[in-house]
């Protein structure tokens, strides 16, 4: 991993988000935070804890439970000189604000012939296995990645969370910034000095020669675990984290697949019509004559997320599922691939 400064500390993902917001709000008075329970509560995940103490309730604004309303207000504020960071408590609630995000924020710059801009960040989250059942566990990055005019960021580590959020806040476009709920307490090295991570640059999380695992957000760790397990088979897996799905760093993905000739795409969104389908299609289009095996996909099972832990755990990609497919693609299992 590239690390711009040797001067680093280990902080949690939540702290990295908090730092990014605090630094940007100190730098630019037009930035404010708005959402449900963002001020004194600091969100249910405590990601924003303490920000209201420094910036006050005028810039860390608790809203009623009105996702469409406060997202729309954010859009209007963004069009008139502010840079709001909107907190959508659960990724599932994106659905409530879809008109404001899709029909308003994403289109206003284009519809106005470039005259109006909407520099807004919608911070939300993804991921199952928190035993939160069907309406608090979904991963909607595919929904928003479908929309021209939006940018979609999926940070994986604390380092990326901070660098990408600062870039998102400074971007003049609407950005949907989706965090993995399970990573909030994960620690990682973060430089003391200021840094930004540009959009559209994938990160090679691990180098390998036999198979490429393209994984997003929560699935990067699954892919890395699988890569370690595959070493026992003598298979060396390369793990690519796109970090932003819109814009997407096609080049890094294609170059990796050209090298390894095999690919599995892993994302926690529903598998059908998802992020994985888009990236698999990209690989089939642009690296077809370098492929040794069909491009395979792994996403959440196409069912509403069940509550019972026994059932819920079945719905998400696991390292075991990844290595099973990887072995098949690499000819280590002769089972038919069509049913994989």
């Amino acid at each position: 991993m590239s690390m711009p400064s040797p001067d680093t500390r280990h902080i949690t993902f939540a702290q990295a988000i908090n730092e990014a917001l605090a630094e940007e709000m100190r730098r630019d008075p037009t930035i404010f935070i708005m959402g449900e329970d963002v001020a004194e509560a600091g969100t249910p995940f405590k990601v924003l804890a303490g920000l209201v103490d420094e910036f006050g309730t005028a810039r860390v604004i608790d809203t009623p439970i009105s996702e469409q309303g406060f997202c729309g207000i954010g859009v209007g504020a963004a069009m008139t000189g502010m840079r709001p960071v909107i907190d959508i408590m659960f990724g599932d609630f994106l659905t409530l604000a879809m008109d404001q995000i899709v029909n308003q924020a994403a289109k206003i710059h284009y519809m106005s012939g470039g005259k109006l801009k909407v520099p807004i960040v919608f911070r939300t989250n993804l991921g199952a296995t928190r035993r939160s059942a069907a309406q608090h566990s979904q991963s909607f990055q595919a929904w928003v990645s479908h929309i021209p005019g939006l940018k979609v960021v999926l940070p994986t580590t604390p380092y990326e969370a901070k660098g990408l959020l600062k870039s998102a806040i400074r971007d003049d476009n609407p950005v949907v910034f989706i965090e993995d709920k399970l990573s909030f307490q994960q620690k990682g090295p973060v430089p003391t000095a200021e840094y930004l991570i540009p959009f559209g640059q994938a990160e090679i999380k691990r180098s390998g020669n036999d198979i490429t695992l393209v994984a997003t957000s929560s699935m990067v760790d699954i892919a890395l675990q699988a890569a370690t397990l595959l070493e026992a088979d003598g298979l060396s897996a390369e793990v690519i984290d796109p970090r932003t799905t819109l814009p997407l760093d096609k080049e890094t993905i294609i170059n990796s697949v050209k090298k390894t000739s095999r690919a599995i795409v892993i994302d926690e969104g529903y598998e059908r019509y998802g992020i994985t389908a888009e990236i698999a299609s990209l690989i089939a289009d642009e690296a077809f004559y370098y492929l040794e095996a069909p491009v395979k996909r792994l996403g959440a099972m196409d069912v509403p997320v069940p509550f019972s832990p026994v059932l819920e755990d079945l719905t998400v990609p696991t390292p075991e599922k990844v290595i099973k497919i990887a072995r098949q693609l690499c000819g280590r299992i002769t089972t038919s691939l069509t049913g994989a």
Partner: protein
Amino acid sequence: MAKNVIMPALGMAQETGILLQWLRQPGEIVTKGEALMEVETDKATVEIEAPASGMLQNVTAAAGDEVPVGQIIAVIVAPGEASPPPQASPAQPPQIVTSVAAGDPPAKSPSVSPVAARIAAENNIDVREITPQYGTRVQKADVLAWLETARVVPTASPRVLASPKARRLAAEIGLDLALVAGSGPAGAVSAADVTAAAAAPPPTPAAVPTAVDAATLPMNNIWRVAARRVTDSWTTTPHFYLNREVDAGQLIAWRQAAQARLAEKITFTDLLTKLLALTLSQYPRLNGMWRDGDIVLNEEINIGLAVAIEAGLTVPVIRRANQLSLQELARQRQTLVAKAQAGKLSAQELSDGTFTISNLGMYGIDSFSPIINPPQAAILAVGRIAERVVAVNGRPVVQPRMALTLSCDHRVVDGAGGAQFMQTLVEFIEEPLRTLK
């Protein structure tokens, strides 16, 4: 544009072919698709079609010449085109040859009844794909049976399974993927298979492999080894032959009944394999072998099927045939034959046979004396089923009859042992219900 006539690769890892004769002479006008020459490879003699229409020129190989696969032996010049200068034969490994006949069997016009031809035409069937049940003439029943099978089990396309990368590499270096054994998922040819095949040393016909080499030679030399072993067999195995003629009436009835019940196409070979496996389980010596002065009895009954493909003869093996249902036997036979025709049999599918059955009935052969497939102890030859007049209880009766010939290695089996085996087999054939006992 002038089209090269090359010595085609007609079998897996075939390295040379013998030009038996030109069917057209230099200077003659030939038509694309008509028989141009006769080539012998391994065990097969094949008529090779003209790859283009035009005048046959620059003929460099004469009858009797053994020519490396891929070598240009003539050109066909389109009318009005200048004859190209004679070309040196490209020094290429055999795999780099584009086979003239690959996937395009010699156009032997089969004998077809008018009704069969009409039905075939209506259903867009190539009659050359149909094997007649009786004799060599394709009849209406053959076409209808073929249609029935085709409806239930669509015939698998012989398209070679290969990764896109392997296809690109093969195209770049001019390699025919059909000649490459696949090691990838589902047996697909991978890029590594292509590069290995391309890197394989060019054929050196003078270098006869030693016996030590034979045991460890890679798969693409299996045919050469097999050929030598057959030669060894013929020169070292004391063969003797037992002939029986059987009433095939029950066999025909059984086949019809089984076909009505099963989706898989059921052949007489399937039924005979089933009966043979059962008989072998009662006569272990026939399932044994001669090894270094000892008689070795095999635990498994693995029956090899002599399969004729354009390139010659190949013997894929149905393992543990005595443990398989008729349906499973038919399924495996179908898969193996399809793979044999596509040149895609693996080394495993060609090895460990303990007994071989060779059926030339579909070619109209009444009976024949086969060479034992070493180290096996025996091989059964099956002739055609034909109606003959036989005396039953002193009266002439017309019966469908079939001739069986058992070739035995006298070092493993004696005449009486072989005869008892044949007696049991004939009883099973004439009364398949006995197998239930």
